[in-house]
């Protein structure tokens, strides 16, 4: 079999996988769910989480022997894109990239991994800390003898989670610890987000925790999982901007002013074309980045591709969702029209795991390091 055959076979598999995931989201209610679940106590649909899990959505990139599909990040990217198209409120990328990414690398035999892959429980990943000027560069949260002390910030998926996967500092290096939702001495502060979801800030004060892994391997696994999640968040943004553009294009074809569809005006046509080009470049760039991440084990090259992907996705989603509001005119500024939901979700996804300026900086530094080596 030639490499071209292999590729087209993979392409066919990916196409089928995409169709099955899209069907699940559509049957569940499409983008209407994003509106319905804004601010809901649970925050997402646990039934859909299980259906997605059954389709292999959370373990698409995980090796088969660890309960995944073994189809690589390109397949996980397909799930993320489809989630982005319907603004799925489920913490899919946080689970697939971070939670499962950490568990399968560090403690594949633990029951938490199979529960996560089966969609039966969500563990919200808690790894970042707030510093005086944004993300802290050092880790102050401590793990000592089965207890945690300190704080964690920007925790996605806290509502409806059964527990937290916390990266803390232990006596012998970093520790991956599991904290139950109802644990003693755990306080949770919710910060409402533009898209109706919440990010949680956790405060531990001698909070009981189960140690899952310890040592340098935790640091390595964390940076790998962050690379995966970053690239998958980029894919989610690509799906989001793809759909936002489709909605906008339909709108300018039907909305009439001066006795014709506004899409007949050249100035809007050219703006629409520029959005479409941005979208195509983003989709091609991000899919290539995911494929390259599948082709190498070098963590630095993977991180560089992840930064490339997120940088591009943020630029494209920002341009497309903001232009979308302008092309909708006044109705674009109302809560009633779906297009605004896309802008709001893009704001949250852009900020999470680093925006384009941040990732361009990382990308260039990585490139310089590679060239110096």
């Amino acid at each position, binding site marked *: 079999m030639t490499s*071209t055959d292999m590729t*087209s076979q993979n392409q066919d598999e990916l196409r089928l996988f995409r169709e099955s995931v899209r069907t699940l989201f559509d049957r569940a209610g499409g983008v209407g769910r994003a509106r319905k679940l804004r601010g809901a106590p649970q925050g997402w649909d646990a039934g859909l989480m299980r259906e997605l899990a059954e389709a292999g959505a959370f373990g698409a990139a995980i090796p088969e022997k660890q309960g995944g599909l073994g189809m690589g990040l390109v397949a996980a990217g397909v799930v993320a894109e489809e989630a982005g198209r319907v603004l799925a409120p489920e913490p899919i990328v946080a689970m697939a990239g971070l939670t499962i990414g950490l568990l399968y690398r560090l403690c594949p035999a633990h029951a938490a991994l199979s529960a996560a892959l089966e969609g039966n429980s969500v563990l919200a990943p808690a790894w970042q800390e707030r510093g005086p000027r944004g993300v802290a560069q050092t880790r102050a949260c401590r793990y000592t003898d089965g207890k945690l002390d300190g704080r964690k910030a920007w925790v996605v998926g806290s509502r409806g989670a059964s527990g937290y996967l916390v990266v803390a500092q232990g006596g012998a290096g970093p520790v991956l610890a599991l904290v139950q939702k109802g644990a003693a001495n755990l306080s949770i502060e919710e910060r409402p987000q533009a898209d109706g979801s919440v990010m949680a800030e956790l405060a531990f004060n001698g909070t009981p925790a189960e140690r899952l892994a310890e040592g340098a391997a935790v640091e390595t696994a964390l940076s790998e999982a962050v690379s995966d999640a970053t690239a998958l968040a980029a894919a989610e943004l690509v799906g989001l901007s793809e759909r936002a553009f489709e909605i906008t*294009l339909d709108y*300018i*074809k039907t909305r009439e002013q001066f006795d*014709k*569809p506004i*899409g*007949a005006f*050249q100035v809007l*046509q*050219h703006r*629409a*074309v*520029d959005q*479409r*080009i941005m979208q*195509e*470049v*983003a989709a*091609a*760039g991000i*899919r*290539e980045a995911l494929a390259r991440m599948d082709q190498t084990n070098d963590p630095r090259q993977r991180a560089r591709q992840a930064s*490339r992907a997120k*940088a*591009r996705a943020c630029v494209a989603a920002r341009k497309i969702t903001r232009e979308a509001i302008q092309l909708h005119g006044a109705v674009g500024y109302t809560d009633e029209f779906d297009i605004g939901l896309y802008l709001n979700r893009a704001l949250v996804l852009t900020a999470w795991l680093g925006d384009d*300026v941040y990732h*361009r*900086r990382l*990308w*260039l530094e990585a*490139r310089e390091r590679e060239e110096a080596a």
Partner: protein
Amino acid sequence: MTDWNQMSDAEFRKEVRRFFETEYPAELRNLSHRPKFAEIEHWHKKLHAKGWVAPAWPAEYGGMGLNAAKLLIFYEEQQRWGIVRGRDMGVQMVGPLIIKYGTQAQKDYWLPRILSCETIWCQGYSEPGAGSDLANLRTRAALEGDEFVINGQKIWTTMAHDSTHIFMLVRTDPNAPKKQQGISFLLARMDQPGITVRTIKTLAGEEEFCEVFLDNARTPRENLVGEMNKGWTMAKALLSFERIFIGSPNLAQNALIQLEGFARGRGAFEDPVFRDRFAQAALDVEDHAALYTRFADQLKRGETLGSDVSMLKIWVTETFQRITELMVEAAGPDGGTLGPLQVGNVGMDVLSSFYKARPTTIYGGANEIQRNILAKAVLELPD
């Protein structure tokens, strides 16, 4: 005769690269101007002896007979080594036209002469009143006995002052109901009393564009290619492959390498603002290349490309311009200085790159025209 298409892509690339790297004259690498034929004649002779003048032509006409995949590799290698495009209008435009629409006699007479560069061609399409609106052309050709008599004016005719022949679109039926009708394709020799050429000096100070005045110029009736009044359709059919070629990442990639070398030498990478803009440009090039690969793969699978391939041209030419603008900025107070600027041990001509990038958004269908086409054909936006 070698059937190149039987080779694996990697083997073929290696073979092409080896030939270029060993045979191409060093002094002609990455020329910043468009050379006259005399300057590159020795290289053309080598190519001709090798049988590599016309990579896209079928082997039976003296070409290499490459399929789309191999052709892309050939061009990629050509660009990678900084090989001059040469005086290839005959090979790129006239040959394919004659092969597709010409008579046997036209094929027998012209094709060998195009390959050997006994005839060197210029393209007479644009006119003062027919640029983006090419179908508006007014140059008239009328049959008188066995000859066409041609009157009118062509402009932006690249290297007309160094060409032996011109192929042109002319109006043969001024009364046709639509302006796209009544246009024919004619070949004519340049050295005749009815043709006057005047060069046009460009912003870069070079003289590669010309005006061509046709004042009772003559050409035999047998120099009509294809059917009378069907020239427009034929000209459009010729553009299909050019549409991906014109959107290839190479110009921008080379400019980025230059920018990086220049900016490192000038210390611009210490400036965080420059760093971010450089990273933006570099990622614009990298992600464009990913999209280019997607279209190239489509060609390699034997699919035809749709109008959406024009996206490549818009993106890459505008990126190319931004990169050369960054070079000018990185030059600081030297940004208006003509000629090579010293960086370490090498000289870099920043303004020459800047100028080279300007016309790319204008030629090959101005980017605004490309956007019109995409709006209609791809986004299906209404009139």
